[in-house]
């Protein structure tokens, strides 16, 4: 029960941060709130047994992406110009989609149910065979690097493409000077 209350508190914090992020007109504070949001979701991941995900989220989600945002904010306006012309439309869309999703959520398995379909397929195979196949105790690493290595290869291709895209978009600073001359 204590776990439930701790989770409840953390999730409440997440909701508050998300709502303050909507309200704030300073873009900079929105960016910092997004960092705090990532950090709190990392704590929730720990309580849901996903320790590897938690430290990746804390390092990459809260750390690296906040650094990227701050670096970009150096060249961008710090304040948002508030125009509330489609708030009503957005609210209606969100309420309708939200209600549909809540309706769908009744068909999902209970959280923590060991008989849920997700725990019947390849999960048990990974748990029983990682030790004999790879000899490492961390199942997440075993699955990431070996059983589903192709996923990780695809991930690195995506990162490479994104890095290439950033380089092509921003250049190395020399091209911009040429255009000005």
């Amino acid at each position, binding site marked *: 029960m204590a776990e439930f209350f701790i989770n409840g508190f953390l999730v409440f914090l997440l909701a508050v941060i998300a709502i303050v992020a909507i309200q704030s007109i300073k873009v900079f504070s929105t960016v910092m709130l997004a960092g705090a949001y990532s950090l709190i979701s990392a704590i929730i991941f720990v309580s849901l*047994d996903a320790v590897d995900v938690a430290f990746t989220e804390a390092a990459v989600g809260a750390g690296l992406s906040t650094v990227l945002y701050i670096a970009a904010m150096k060249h961008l306006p710090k304040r948002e110009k508030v125009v509330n012309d489609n708030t009503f439309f957005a609210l209606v869309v969100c309420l309708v989609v939200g209600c549909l999703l809540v309706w769908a959520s009744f068909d999902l398995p209970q*959280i*923590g149910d060991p008989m849920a379909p997700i725990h019947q397929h390849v999960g048990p195979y990974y748990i029983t065979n*990682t030790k004999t196949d790879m000899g490492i105790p961390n199942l997440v690493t075993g*699955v990431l690097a070996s059983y589903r290595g192709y996923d990780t290869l695809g991930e690195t291709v995506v990162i490479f493409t994104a890095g290439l895209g950033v380089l092509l978009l921003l250049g190395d600073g020399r091209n911009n000077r040429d255009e000005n001359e």
Partner: protein
Amino acid sequence: MIHGILGIWNYWIVIILMMTGLFIVISRHNLVKKMVGLTIFQTSVFLFYISLGKVQGGTAPILTGYKNTLYSNPLPHVLILTAIVVGVATTALGLALILRIKNEYGTIEENEIASFNTEENSK
């Protein structure tokens, strides 16, 4: 074992966070804020996957060496690890695009950029 509403309330929280992200993406014109909205949406999806992988009474999927230890499902964790890293890559690309837009139009407010485009078309 938790039952009834307690068993699915995590999903509802995920839905609320997801809709908050969607609301920001639709209603705000500032492109950086839209990116933050997308990040919030994305993190709520992560939370959904990790909730699905949880086993009641289970522990983190690192082998303890004891028999009959109950582990949470490692597969969603792996998928989300990949998704987090890809998410940062897309954030970087999005911010680079925003910087280019700022250089080109001098603003990052979507409605102002749209009005620039209509002016150019009417000429």
